[in-house]
């Protein structure tokens, strides 16, 4: 368990709702949920969630901290925004889901093998290197995410798509060596480093 996690348990004791309100993006909206269920019923991935958003909000209010933060549910969100469009109380549900996922990750409680989480990490590493997504490298990384054998299988299955993308100039073999980039990668890295510094300083406060 991370230091920050222990610090947070200490700080908020039995009040998980307060903890979420203070630390999770858009967390102050959680108390506004009236448990109507529209978000859960509207989610195209709904059947795959252990706990649909409506239930997550109730669990937060019921103080089920471990269950919520270690859940794979909020990692299921694909940002389709159906729930936000329909929520009668205007909760920014998508943002709260990402906020919860991010918070769980920072505390070291997020499920390690959750594929969306793994993808998000690969995507981030890929994107931040050059400021542009390297489709080829990202694709390969994903295919081989679960081992070499499965990687080959997936690559074979996807070869027509790849070929199509190559023909329509959406994908270049040259990307394997270097790849395209934004003009000022240094500037981008400076911004990201600064952001990381701020985040870490916040976390330090708790770890004391």
């Amino acid at each position, binding site marked *: 368990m991370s230091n920050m996690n222990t610090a947070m348990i200490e700080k908020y004791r039995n009040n998980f709702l307060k903890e979420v309100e203070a630390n999770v993006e858009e967390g102050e909206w959680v108390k506004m949920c009236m448990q109507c*269920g529209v978000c*859960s019923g*509207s989610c195209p991935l709904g059947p795959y969630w252990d706990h649909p958003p409506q*239930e997550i909000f109730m669990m937060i209010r019921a103080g089920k901290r471990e269950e919520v933060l270690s859940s794979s549910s909020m990692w299921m969100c694909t940002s389709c925004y159906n729930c936000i*469009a329909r929520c009668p109380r205007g909760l920014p549900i998508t943002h709260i889901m990402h906020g919860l996922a991010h918070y769980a990750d920072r505390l070291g409680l997020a499920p390690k093998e959750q594929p969306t989480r793994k993808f998000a990490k690969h995507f981030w590493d890929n994107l931040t290197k050059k400021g542009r997504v390297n489709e080829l490298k990202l694709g390969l990384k994903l295919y081989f995410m679960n081992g070499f054998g499965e990687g080959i299988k997936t690559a074979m299955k996807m070869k027509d798509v790849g070929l199509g993308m190559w023909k329509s100039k959406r994908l270049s073999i040259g990307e394997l060596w270097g790849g395209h980039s934004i003009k000022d990668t240094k500037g981008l890295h400076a911004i990201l480093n600064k952001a990381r510094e701020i985040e870490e300083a916040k976390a330090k406060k708790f770890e004391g």
Partner: protein
Amino acid sequence: MSEIVASNETILVVGGGISGMTAALEAAECGKQVILLEKTPALGGRVSQLYRYFPKLCHPTCGLEINLRRVKANPNLRVLTMAEVTAVSGDAGNYSVKVRISPRYVNENCTACGECEKAVEAEFDDEFNYGLGKRKGAYLPHKMAFPQRYVIDPAIIGTADADKAKEACKYGAIDLDMQEQEIELTVGAIIWATGWRPYDAARIQPYGYDRIANVITSVEFERMADPYGPTGGKLLRPSDGKEAKDIAFIQCAGSRDRNHLKHCSRICCMASLKQSTYVTEKHGEDGKATIYYIDIRAIDRIDDFYRKVKENPNVSFIKSKVANIVEDKETGNPVLRGVDTEGYHRYENPHDLVVLAVGMEPSVPADAFPVDVEINEEGFIEASPDNGAVFAAGCSSDALDVNRAVQSATASALRAIQVINRAAGTEG
């Protein structure tokens, strides 16, 4: 039309629904001069379109009849139908009101014999039945209509149908040259009782009211249940005319929702509880009603009613706001999809017919009031000293059931009377 005499001791009531009629009668029976304006060709408002009404489940015709008898008997009360206020100027105790009266093309000689209706061919959507049926181009708005006088639809004026109607009338009641009139009234106080309208169900996109035949609104369901309604009192599916026995009700359709009406419309929980009794009344053991809800808001004495409905094994409750409805193309059944709040079970439930318990919104949009009054966020008239002697009654002040609408009407009558007494110098 004879001259309408009005002075600053006259009270004007705008809207002839249950609230406007009540306010007008209370004031007139206190000896005040009252003019009651109604936009449509008949008094009664939306209550006259209900099959039964809660909590006693009596037929609204009964209450309406008593009120109409009081209207007819009172010499202080003057009723103008097909009339709308276009402008108001002046202050409390002395208003000048411009009124536009649309031509009815039928005069006082009409005996409501119905010969003109038989003679005319053109048909139009019947507004009394929310478009579920048709009416002729010469019509009586509904069987209890007051005044009991036919109306010629302006759309047939200038056509052969109009001449046929005129020829068929043995009493010389049809006057095809009638023109729109503008009159100006001087009044001391105004009671605003223009009521409500159902929220436009087609705007609730996931429920498919505009796409799925067997998704209807609660106001349409009232008309269906009425033996004098478009289906003769049978609960029929619009898609295939088959009897609907397994009926779902969706609460808060357009209410308590930031995308639609923010307020709770207050009457729709009770309306659906009431309508679930129609299902058992019509089908007995074979009828099944399922109510999908966020929470049931049955207030004070009405809670008894809720408890009684809950005891009926043929009525079930699912705590969930339905997420969306799709149509089963083969059966025409609407399929309701969502997740319930008691256990978070995902469901996909087909029903024969779905009734949307639509919300109430003010019938006059906030930007269309011809009089300067304070309107709240929901579009209802707020009680405010800045309103002068304009007092809201019934559903133009809030979403109310008949009981509360009538209370508010009586209160507004009393306020108007005080203004008139002051104007007449009989007070203080």
